């Protein structure tokens, strides 16, 4: 399990490249990269601040990753999450899963991303031309999280 919370910009390609290592039991690597957009719900975004709770954030991401791995039979999972000030166009989160087969690799990435949206101790504040506001999980995020739980 590779879990990293970083205040520095990261290169998803380089992270994924090192993830498979030399192992020969993984037939599939699936990944997702979330980026900071310059617009949400019709509002301009000039900067995103992502706040974390040092120690607890890493611990909770690791717990959610272990839970996902247990449910999906994943060989390994990687999460890199950016914190601090993020500019539009920069990666925020990378989730990657190794599995013998592609279906389960895709599924592990989807499930872990749903958890990350609603259950990870991270708080986002968007700054636009009209000021700043804290973001909370949407109804859609909550519904996806509930579905992940039902399918467990």
């Amino acid at each position, binding site marked *: 399990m590779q879990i990293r919370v970083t205040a520095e910009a990261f290169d998803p390609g380089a992270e994924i490249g090192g993830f498979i290592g030399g192992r020969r039991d993984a037939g599939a690597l699936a990944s997702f990269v979330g980026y900071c957009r310059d617009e949400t719900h019709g509002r301009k975004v000039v900067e995103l601040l992502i706040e974390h709770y040092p120690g607890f954030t890493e*611990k909770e991401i690791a717990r959610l990753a272990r839970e996902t791995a247990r449910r999906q039979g994943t060989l390994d999972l990687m999460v890199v999450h950016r914190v601090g000030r993020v500019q539009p166009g920069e990666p925020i989160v990378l989730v990657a899963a190794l599995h013998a087969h592609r279906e389960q690799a895709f599924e592990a990435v989807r499930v872990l991303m749903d958890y990350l949206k609603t259950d990870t101790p991270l708080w986002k504040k968007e700054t636009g031309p009209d000021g700043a506001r804290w973001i909370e999980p949407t109804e859609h995020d909550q519904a996806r999280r509930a579905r992940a739980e039902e399918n467990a």
Partner: protein
Amino acid sequence: MKLVFLGRFREIAAPHLSDMARPADVATLSDLQGWLAAREPGLAGALCGARSQIAINQEIVRDPGHPIGDNDEIAFLPPMSGG
């Protein structure tokens, strides 16, 4: 005890609250919530929100009767928004 306010709670809470001696009448989490609500009206609604959570020594705690010790770190977490 140490109080940690995250996200929007940090912007509401007065800085002097972060490191303070445990008041004599605060023995449980529920006591602490009441104590804070009485002194920080701005925080009262936020701390009781349905989707807000509290962690004691970096473990989520839901029992209002959970004891609070002099060396505990109590964190107030607004609804989370990762990913």
